[in-house]
């Protein structure tokens, strides 16, 4: 692995959190009309993995808050009505918080700029994505589909192709952005070796 440019070590946790928020919001808005291809889950998971659970909460809530505000201001989702929007918001936000916490459990210290670490992140993104989709599909049923007469089983069946695409999105974006952010993340500081002292065996 090539030696890092020391300038990258100047990135603070807050800098990286800001970059992850930009990634999450920008990706979500750019990919708005591509169903279930999104960068929010990657941003939340990577925030958890590289910066810890507190920053994963910050990044997730900032990304969802800003992007939801823009999306609803553009008129999307108006056909659902305010109660359904608020209900779905609770499920999507909490679902992304779960993803961030899963990322934080993966652990900052174990995630380095290596293929092994990116494979670990990609693997962990699979259950995170499945959990998010199962959770939000349930929310969809509670607030949208159920009141219109659809069964939970039907909702989950209809969710399958979208979950497959969401999995494809996650396994591409998480290691892709993970490799970038692992390169930008300051390496763990190395403790100085203790000075050898005289002694006798």
């Amino acid at each position, binding site marked *: 692995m090539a030696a890092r440019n020391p300038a990258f070590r100047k990135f603070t946790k807050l800098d990286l959190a800001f970059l992850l928020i930009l990634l999450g919001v920008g990706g979500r808005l750019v990919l708005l009309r591509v169903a279930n291809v999104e960068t929010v889950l990657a941003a939340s998971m990577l925030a958890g993995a590289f910066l810890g659970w507190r920053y994963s909460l910050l990044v997730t809530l900032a990304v969802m808050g800003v992007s939801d505000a823009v999306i609803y201001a553009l008129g999307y989702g108006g056909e659902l009505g305010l109660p359904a929007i608020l209900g779905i918001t609770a499920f999507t936000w909490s679902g992304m918080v779960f993803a961030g916490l899963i990322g934080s459990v993966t652990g900052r210290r174990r995630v380095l700029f290596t293929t092994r670490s990116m494979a670990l992140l990609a693997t962990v993104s699979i259950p995170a994505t499945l959990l998010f989709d199962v959770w939000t599909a349930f929310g969809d049923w509670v607030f949208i589909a159920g009141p*219109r007469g659809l069964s939970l089983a039907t909702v989950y069946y209809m969710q399958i192709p979208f979950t497959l695409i969401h999995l494809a999105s996650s396994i591409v974006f998480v290691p892709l952005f993970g490799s970038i952010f692992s390169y930008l993340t300051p390496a763990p500081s190395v403790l100085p070796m203790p000075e050898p002292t005289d002694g006798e065996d």
Partner: protein
Amino acid sequence: MLLPERVKAAVFAGLIVLSAVGLILAAQTFRPQPPALTAGIPVSMQIEGAGWVITYSSNDTRNNTVHLFLLEAAHTLHFGLVWSNWSAPYSAVFIEGINGSINGEGGRWWVFWVNGTYGSTAADLTVLHGGEAILWRFTTPEGG
């Protein structure tokens, strides 16, 4: 066997691309495919807009999705239709306006039912087999 890091990274990237393509192809198998019809089918449709109603029916249509049948009605009866496309990999049509009534006007939106059942998929993904009665209504979310 100890592979160099670059080789491992290349193999990993290849696996990721293959997996993503496989997942997207798998998703396509769930996409409703309207069959190519050898004979026409009967379908009827009522469109309830802002202060107006359009009815249209055909006993011999080969436009066997809700979207295609709506296009047929618009073409035959000469009313305007506005829609947008959601992009691949799971593209779908979203109806935005019919006969001058556009989504969001007066807090109302276009929704449809087929034989009384709420349209839970996009209009171009809702396949018609013959005998269906489609209802399009420009309504408030609570009015569904």
